[in-house]
């Protein structure tokens, strides 16, 4: 049955609720395994083989291999769990967050230093803030692609 989800009208935001948690269970458990150095080494040595040891969907595995965190989140990943992948790659939270917005690390960092992403236009789906679906991807990479 559908749970009440008042948070679904927030743009660019996925709440890790019951449905997401069910969907992403094995993906997140895989991420959790990366807390051990030995597992990180095994994952790095052969990512595909390591992923195949987990009952994840093919979409989840592809999303991990592509390091596409938005796809990981769409298939049930939670950012705190996914951060273990970033940690294994030697990436910071900021680099990971940047990767989800289509911004370069520098662009993202500059946005943060100048006060962060504005709430204006980003409260509800349908407004015109930079996190809205029609304005993705953001940043220079996005503009080049959008020409």
């Amino acid at each position: 049955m559908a749970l009440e989800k008042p948070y679904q009208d927030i743009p660019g935001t996925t709440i890790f609720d019951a449905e997401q948690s069910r969907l992403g269970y094995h993906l997140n458990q895989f991420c959790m395994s990366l807390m051990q150095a030995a597992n990180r080494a095994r994952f790095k040595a052969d990512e595909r083989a390591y992923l195949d040891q987990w009952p994840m969907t093919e979409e989840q595995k592809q999303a991990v291999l592509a390091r596409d965190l938005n796809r990981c989140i769409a298939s049930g990943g939670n950012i705190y769990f996914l951060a273990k992948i970033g940690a294994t790659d030697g990436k910071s939270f900021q680099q990971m967050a940047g990767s989800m917005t289509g911004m370069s690390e520098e662009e993202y960092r500059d946005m943060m230093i100048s006060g962060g992403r504005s709430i204006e236009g980003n409260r509800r789906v349908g407004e015109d803030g930079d996190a809205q679906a029609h304005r993705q991807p953001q940043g220079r990479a996005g503009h080049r692609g959008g020409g």
Partner: protein
Amino acid sequence: MAKIVGGINVTHVPYIGRAIANKTQQDPYWKPFFDGFPPVHDWLAKQKADVAVVIYNDHGLNFFLDQMPTFAVGAAPEYQNADEGWGIPTLPPYPGELDLSWHLIESLVEEEFDIVTCQEMLVDHAFTLPLELLWPNQHPCPVRTVPVCINTVQFPLPTAARCFKFGQAIGRAIESWDSAARVVVIGTGGLSHQLEGQRAGFINKEFDLMFMDKLITDPLWVTRYSIPDLVELTGTQGVELLNWLTTRGALLGEVAKVHANYHVPISNTASGLLAMENV
């Protein structure tokens, strides 16, 4: 919306597993216990429950003392039984009911119960044997299940009043579940018994019978007792009656007795069986 068809409280003792495995149900020792069940089987057959919410306590199979939840709710597609170390046969897995699990979890947190959500959960004899007693020799179990664990092992335990309110919240959650399912609530454990110390073997028949009676007519009666009171009156493991009380709470409103049985002893335990339905 889902319908609660009634509630059943029943004792769980590992030893029962051995009696079933050895087919000694009709031996003089076991007969007075097993003979309590046929009327409940008949009632269950009429009720046609699809789902069972099973309220019980874990005995060191799924939870260890490193992390001991007061209230835990299972949200797994299937629940495995496993070796508990005391040599009773392991039973086949039980089907879960994920939609109800998550609906319960959402509703209970909304109602300010600070539960633990478990997407993997081993179920021990306190879950498996009551289902085996209620649906003998039916594998897989004909009802989908949601396990709900209450800490009755490591003090501090939740108070009786809290358990009753927890049960009521479970009842409201089931009734607000958008499903045509028919749900039976099962509470396991008790009644009076004490496994350890110089007072091992303690039984309090008078209290047990009073409790069974009051559970129908005046369930809040038992909430006058603190947890240490209940230990004193029913034994250190007798506090498992909290599972019964929670089950009674889930049957919102007035209830009538469908069938009851009480027999001492099964192993070290005063065994009770009480089926109830709303009036």
